[in-house]
């Protein structure tokens, strides 16, 4: 059994808008293992994005605790969270979040400039198959290409964990598969722990471990004995 990388106990998140309290997480206990590709599956609003944001140090829990290895994320200051994100975490977002006025290479350099031991931006882009599109601006790239730039940006700092929030949510099946292939390759070749949020049930087939979410709680955790190739996945 590989070592634990994320652990949480009774993780709860409440959003208060005016008089209304919305429970995004209702006491989540979770264990995730290093080097695994985990898929968090569930309908929208089930709390998976909130969990990912807390694990990624983007958001804070209302109650409960979460650890990254031995470091308690829920006890960190803003400054410590910033350093945590900078040193350990790579993010991939549904809407890519590329800076429109920077080229593919420059978007990756946003990360390599502040990382401790980054790979060259061109190498990161080559890993996602974009070595010919280095100097294109986001507007000159297709959606799938943009998402692969975002993945290159996330892995360029050689993060220990890669957190992907609906990475294929805005893509059609064909380009989505290219993105999944890139993720699979990174997980295999670099050994990066990867967590992928999706409400696309087809993607679960490529995971080591699948965590099902419903209504702010984990409803089921399943381990895949055999994993499918991304190219076998369609939607």
């Amino acid at each position, binding site marked *: 059994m590989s070592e634990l990388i994320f652990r949480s106990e009774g993780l709860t998140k409440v959003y208060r808008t005016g008089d209304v309290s919305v429970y995004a997480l209702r006491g989540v206990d979770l264990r995730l293992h290093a080097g695994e590709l985990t898929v968090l599956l569930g309908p929208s609003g089930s709390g998976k994005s909130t969990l990912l944001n807390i694990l990624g140090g983007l958001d804070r829990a209302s109650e409960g605790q979460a650890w990254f290895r031995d470091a308690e994320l829920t006890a960190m200051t803003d400054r410590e969270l910033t350093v945590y994100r900078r040193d350990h975490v790579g993010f991939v977002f549904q809407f890519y979040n590329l800076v429109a006025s*920077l080229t593919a290479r420059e978007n990756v350099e946003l990360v390599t400039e*502040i990382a401790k031991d980054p790979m060259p931006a061109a190498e990161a882009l080559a890993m996602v198959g974009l070595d010919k599109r280095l100097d294109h601006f986001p507007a000159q790239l297709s959606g799938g290409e943009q998402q692969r730039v975002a993945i290159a940006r996330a892995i360029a700092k050689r993060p220990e964990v890669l957190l992907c929030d609906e990475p294929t949510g805005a893509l059609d099946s064909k380009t989505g598969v290219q993105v999944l292939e890139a993720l699979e390759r990174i997980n295999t070749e670099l050994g990066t722990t990867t967590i992928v949020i999706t409400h696309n049930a087809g993607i679960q087939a490529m995971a080591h471990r699948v965590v099902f979410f419903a209504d702010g709680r984990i409803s089921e955790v399943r381990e895949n004995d055999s994993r499918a190739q991304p190219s076998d996945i369609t939607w």
Partner: protein
Amino acid sequence: MAMHVLDRKLLRDLKRMWAQVLAIALVLACGVMILVLAIGVQRSLQDTLDAYYERNRFAEVFSGAKRAPESLLGEIRALPGVRVAETRIVGQVVLDVPGLSEPAAGRVISLPEIDVPALNLPLVVTGRPPAQDSVDEVMVTRAFADANGFVAGDRFSANLNGRKRELTITGTALSPEYIYVLGPGAMLPDNRRFGVLWMPRRALAAAFDLQGAFNDVSLALTREGRAEEVIPALDRILAPYGGAGAYGRAEQASHIFIEGELTQLRALAQILPPIFFVISAFLVNMVLARIVTLERGVIGLLKALGYSDLAVAGHFLKFASLVAAIGIVIGWAVGSWLAQGMARLYTEFFEFPYLVFDPRGDSYAISAAAGLVAAGLGAVQGVRRAVRMPPAVAMVPPAPPTFKRGLSDRLATWARFSQPSMMVLRGITRWPGRATFSVLAISAAVAMLMSASFFPDSLDEIIDTSFFRQNRQDAMLILTRDQTENVVEDVRHLPGVIAAEPMQYLPVVLRHGHLSRRIAIEARDPDATLSRVTDASGQPVAPAGGGIILSDRLAERLAVKPGDKVQVEVLTGRRDTLTVPVTDIATVYFGLGAYMDRGALARLLRSPPQASVVNIAMDRQRADALYAAAKETPGLAGTVLLFQTRASFRETISRNVLNTTVVYILIAVLITVGVTYNGARIQLSERARELASLRILGFSRAEVSYILMGELMLLSILAQPVGWLLGWAFAYAQVKSFSSDLYSLPFVMNPATYAKASLVVLAASAASALIVRRRIDSLDLVAVMKTRE
């Protein structure tokens, strides 16, 4: 080292938003420009002045006398507080300048027999001073020589105390006493018809019968010496010898003019720049707020990537600083260029040995600091919002802004406003701060235009009052000394003279309580029509009996109203002190005048009526004959041709007014465009989805444009009355700050001034809104609907 990726993004953002950035930078540049101009020129002028005064030993106390024995000098030097005292002979002369038909006037000043003057040292520009033993050599002011085309060796003739003499020019010079050169009775410098002449003391003493005597003394004071204490002491010593009343630099004619200019520059540096900086700060605030909203995603991303709050703040602060930097560089460049022009203009009006605009660090440093601070303050709010945005929240689209139904909505519903009008109205009530500031900024543009365009009206009023109601004479013939009645008869018989009226100048100190002013009373005959004074309503007023009329500013300085009594200390003759009632207040724009009846004054002084000046109306066809005769008339010290003054006044002023008006229109347009263009771009950006949705729903381009432009035009219209009020106050403040002992401006506000200012501003705001409106035409409806906020 390669540029940071974020900095590259910044430069590209700036390039993409160049029009908005430039619009802000130009407003900021106005503030920087005026600071560079005003501080730079003021310091250059002040330093030049200080160095010139010091190097050429400009005196600190001055006094004239009729004829004082040289032996008094020891006594004067012994006065406490006096460091240096020097006596001179100063006289008025009539000059016959080749090529000039009318007589010119000169003031001749003696040079000491040995050595150079200890005080008021002339600065020789060309040639040399006259030889000590010469009787017909003379050095003249550079301006006089230049205006008449004289070079060393040229000759002209002068009437020295009734004796006509041919003089040879040995050189030209400048003097710290005559930086601003105004001939007797003149209102503007006229270098063709007035010059200062230097001659050896011995020659002048002989010509003016002042051997062993002097009629002018200058003092320099010790470090502890105070002019207020030395002046009365000097007056006491000179009183028996016809002392004309000592005065300090504060009353020295040339010095007053330069001080007035320095005061104006200081006021310029204090009043205008803050307005521009506040508006720039507002614009930076408005634009940055929008950028931070638009870049929520980027802010969230940067934070997610591990960029610190400081790095995020730095990114947006850099944006503000770069906008400021562009404005500062433009402001520096234009400011330096204008400053050089202004320095050139000063050399036209003032006689400095050198006056170059010396671009020194501090005016640049101060203006740059002010610009950066303004942009920085404008950025604070946006930067703070960016820093406070939690990364997870930053990456989801913003909630729609909350609108509330308020009083204005109920009014609008009641008035059955259309939905587009409701959108316009709610846009204003939703962001009341932004709307208020837009109104204020646009109104500042209106105010600026008004305060520039009221100027010509005010000058018209000055010309009308001073030259057509009060000083209606064609010329003034100035006498070498006061004379009795028959001189008027002599003048009346000169060829071409249609009418002649005598006027007396009586140097006095007027006192009321502890307030006093040293002036010359103008005494005229009650039936005088060529030269007279008028009251506030423009009606002529004449002093009744033994009463005195004061000009409005003199009455204000002395805190006197009609019915009060003032003490008149006469500075000539028997030096009587009279107490006379103030009968009226006159409206006068030049000088601090006081007016009495000539006959009544003579009775009070127990002497026959005197004349210092004869005002004439003349037949201009026969001007040459009149001038020729005047040159031969003994006792005439010079002529002032008022018909020429009128023309040159108009010409000088209208040239400057035109320049000023152009500059102010430009500035007002920059402000208006800065505010409305940025406002329109931001609205378009905020409402792009809304407007596109409306287009999809079937609204026409015009209807959609109305929503976009409606708010701005409504704000521009609301700004008009506020601008009128501000402009009125600006103009009034200008009138007040302009008013000095030398001149004042009437406060004239014509309806056309309001209208012109509003037209320019409304046109500029409509134009900038229309430029943005064109973008609605190219709105890609599908793309807009697809993009996330």
